[in-house]
C-alpha cells in the first residue's frame, strides 16, 4: 500500500507540474504590451517652477502569480531622482477606468523606488495608469499606460524555484523510503539522547517513580508537537513494557486527545491494554505560565525520576528544566525552537537539537521506511552544502576576476533560491 501511495504521489506531482508549466507559459504569451505610444501627456498646464523630469512608465501588467485584484506598475526613475536636480520626493501612482477619465491617486512610492503594486483593482475591469513625479514645487506626469486588466493565475510562477527544490527533496526522501522498504540497509549514527531513552525509563522503573512527559506548549498545528507525540508513541511502548508510571500534563485539549490515543495504542502494542488509563494524560491550562506553575508543582511533589521535554517550547523551558534538575531527575529534551536550545543544553542531561527532534521517532521506531527518510534528509543537506559552497566559490571567482558573464550566471542560479 505504501508503495502504491508513493507512486501515486509522484505521479500526481509530476502531472501537476506539467499542467502548471503549461498554464504559466500560456500566461506569458498573454502578457499585455507595455506602453501606449500614442498616449497623451496630461497636466502640463502650469509652467513648472522647478519640476523634475518625469519618470517614464516601464511596464504595466497584471501582477504575476497572484489571486487577481492586483496590477503592477513599474517605471524608469526620473533623471532627477538622486541625481540631476535631485529634487524628487516621491512618485504617485494614478489610475482611471477610462483613458481620459478622472485619475485618482492609488498609492505612492518613495524616491528611488521603481515599482508599485496596486492591489485594489477589480478583476476584469480595464484600468489606465500614469506616474506623477513629485517634487517640492509640484508634480510632473508620465505618459498614460495602455488599458490593462488584472486576473488570477493558476500557477505562481514566482514560486517555481521553491516548487522545484521542494520536489527534489521530496523525491530524495521518497526514493530512500522506497529503497529501505525493499530491504536496503542504511548506516545511522548514534544520537546520545536517544540511546539514553531506555536507560532513563529503566531508572524510573528501578526507583519506583514516575516519568514526566511534556509535549511542549503549542497545539497540534505545530509540527514540533506532532514530533513530540510521535516520540511519545515509542517511549510509551517501552514504559508499558517496563510497567512504569507515566504522567503527562498537557496545555492543549487536542494534544490531550491525541496523546491518549497514542499511549493507549502503545499499551495495546505492548500487550498490556488493561494497564492503560486515561488519567495518564491530563489537561491543565492553555496559559503558558499557568501551565508551567502547575508542572513545577507536580515536579517538586511527585519527584519524577525522568523528565522528557519534546516539542515546541518558549520561555518556560528553563523554569521546568531547572526545577527538574533540582529534584535530580534525568532530563531528555528536544525542540526546534533555537532560542530555547541553549537552556536545555545547559540544564538537561541530553538535548535533541532541531533536526534530531524530528528524526527521533524514526530512530526509535527502527522501521526501515522511517530510517530511509532520514537518508533522504541527508541528501537535502548535501544539496544545500553543494549549493552554498559552489555558489560562494563562483561569486568569489567572478568578483575577483570581475567577469560580468560569470556574475550573471551566478546571479541566475542564486535566483533559484530567492523564494518569494
Amino acid at each position: 500500500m505504501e508503495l502504491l501511495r508513493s507512486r501515486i504521489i509522484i505521479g500526481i506531482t509530476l502531472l501537476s507540474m506539467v499542467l502548471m508549466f503549461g498554464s504559466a507559459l500560456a500566461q506569458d504569451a498573454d502578457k499585455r504590451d507595455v506602453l501606449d505610444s500614442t498616449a497623451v501627456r496630461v497636466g502640463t498646464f502650469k509652467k513648472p517652477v522647478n519640476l523634475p523630469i518625469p519618470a517614464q512608465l516601464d511596464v504595466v501588467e497584471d501582477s504575476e502569480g497572484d489571486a487577481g485584484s492586483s496590477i503592477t506598475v513599474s517605471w524608469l526613475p526620473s533623471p532627477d531622482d538622486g541625481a540631476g536636480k535631485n529634487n524628487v520626493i516621491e512618485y504617485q501612482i494614478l489610475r482611471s477606468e477610462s483613458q481620459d477619465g478622472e485619475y485618482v491617486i492609488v498609492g505612492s512610492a518613495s524616491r528611488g523606488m521603481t515599482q508599485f503594486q496596486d492591489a485594489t483593482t477589480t478583476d476584469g475591469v480595464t484600468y489606465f495608469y500614469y506616474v506623477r513625479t513629485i517634487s517640492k514645487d509640484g508634480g510632473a506626469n508620465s505618459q498614460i499606460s495602455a488599458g490593462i486588466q488584472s486576473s488570477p493565475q493558476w500557477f505562481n510562477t514566482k514560486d517555481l524555484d521553491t516548487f522545484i527544490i521542494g520536489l527534489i527533496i521530496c523525491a530524495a526522501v521518497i526514493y530512500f523510503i522506497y529503497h529501505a522498504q525493499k530491504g536496503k540497509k542504511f548506516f545511522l549514527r548514534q544520537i546520545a539522547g536517544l540511546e539514553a531513552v531506555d536507560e532513563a525509563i529503566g531508572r524510573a522503573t528501578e526507583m519506583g517513580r514516575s516519568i514526566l512527559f511534556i509535549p511542549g506548549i503549542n497545539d497540534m498545528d505545530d509540527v514540533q508537537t506532532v514530533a513530540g507525540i510521535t516520540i511519545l508513541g515509542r517511549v510509551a511502548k517501552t514504559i508499558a513494557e517496563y510497567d512504569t508510571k507515566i504522567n503527562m500534563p498537557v496545555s492543549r485539549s487536542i494534544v490531550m486527545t491525541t496523546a491518549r490515543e497514542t499511549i493507549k495504542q502503545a499499551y495495546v502494542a505492548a500487550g498490556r491494554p488493561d494497564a492503560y488509563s486515561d488519567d495518564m494524560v491530563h489537561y491543565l491550562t492553555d496559559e503558558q505560565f499557568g501551565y508551567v506553575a502547575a508542572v513545577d508543582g507536580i515536579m517538586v511533589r511527585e519527584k519524577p525520576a525522568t523528565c522528557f521535554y519534546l516539542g515546541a517550547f518558549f520561555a518556560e523551558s528553563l523554569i521546568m528544566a531547572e526545577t527538574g534538575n533540582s529534584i535530580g531527575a534525568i532530563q531528555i529534551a528536544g525542540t526546534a525552537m533555537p532560542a530555547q536550545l541553549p537552556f536545555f543544553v545547559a540544564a538537561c542531561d541530553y538535548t535533541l537539537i532541531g533536526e534530531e527532534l524530528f528524526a527521533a521517532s524514526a530512530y526509535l521506531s527502527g522501521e526501515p521506511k522511517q530510517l530511509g527518510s532520514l537518508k533522504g534528509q541527508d541528501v537535502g543537506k548535501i544539496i544545500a552544502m553543494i549549493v552554498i559552497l559552489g555558489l560562494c566559490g563562483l561569486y568569489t571567482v567572478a568578483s575577483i576576476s570581475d567577469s560580468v558573464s560569470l556574475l550573471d550566471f551566478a546571479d541566475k542560479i542564486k535566483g533559484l533560491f530567492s523564494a518569494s
Partner: protein
Amino acid sequence: MNGNGEQKSLVERLQFIDRRIIFLFIAVAVVLPLLFGATLKEETTPIVQELFDFIEHLPPDSRVLLSFDYGPTTAPEIQPMADAIVRHCAERDTRLYMMAIWATGHNLTGSTIEETLKPEFPGYVYGEDYINLGYKAGNQGLIRLLFDDFKRMYSTDANGTAIDEFPMMQQIKNLKNFDLIVSFGGGFPGIKEWVLYAGDPGNIPVGGGCTAVSAPLLYPYYPNQLVGILGGAKGAAEYENALITKYPAYGKKWMGGMSLMMSQAVSHVVIMLFILFGNALYFILRAQRKLETGGGE
C-alpha cells in the same frame, strides 16, 4: 555529577552551592539600582540605526502599521521600544495604524496612546493620523487573512466604529498598502510571523522590537527580510539614543530603556562573578584531585 557524596570539603560543597544563595544575590542586584533610579546610555548599533533611518526617511503621511504583539510579562522590556518608535513616527508625521495579534496587546496599545501619543502629540487626530484597530484572534492565520483582505477582519476599530468612516482607512485594502510594518513582538506570534506571512510574500518592509531572547533568532532575517530589529532593553536604549541625537528635545525626558539598562548591568555583573567563582572552584578542585590521585581524571 554525584550529588550525594559522603564527606565533602568546603570547596566541594561550594561547587554545588545552594541555589537559593544565588537567588538572593540576584534579587539584591536588581533591587538596589532600582532604588537609586540610575540610567545608562547606549551607543546605537547599525541594526537599530537602520530601522531608525528607515522611519526617518519616510515621507509624511506614510502608512505605518504598528502591531502590539506582547503582553504584561514582556512589557518592561518592550514598552520602551513602542514608546520610542511611536514618538519617532509621530515626529515624522506618519499615519499610525495600531493593532494587536496578542489579546494582551490591546490594553498596551491603549496605554501607549494615552500615555505617550496623546500627551506628547496633541496635534494627532484620531481617525486621520492614528487609529487603534484593537485585537483580533487568529495568530499567524490573522496575518494571512489581513494580507489578502484587511477589512475582512477589521470591519470596525477598537471602539466599534465602522472602519470606512475613517479617512485614513480608505486607501487600505490589504497589508501591501502599508509602507512599513513594525511588530513589537514578545514571542509567538510575532515578528517572525509578520516576516513569513506578510513581509516575504508581499515585499513589505518589516521592522520590529523584541525581547533580547528572541533577537538572535531574528538576526538571520536581517537585512534581507527585516529592516532592523531592536533587541531587548539594549535595543530600546539604542533607539532612544538615536532619537535623542536627532531630536535633542528628548534628552530631558525619562527614557525607559536607559533606566532598565542600569539594573541589568548590575545583575549581569553578579551573574558573571558567579560564573567566575564557579570556575575558580572547579579548577581548585581539579588541581586538588590531581595531587591526590597523581594526575589524570
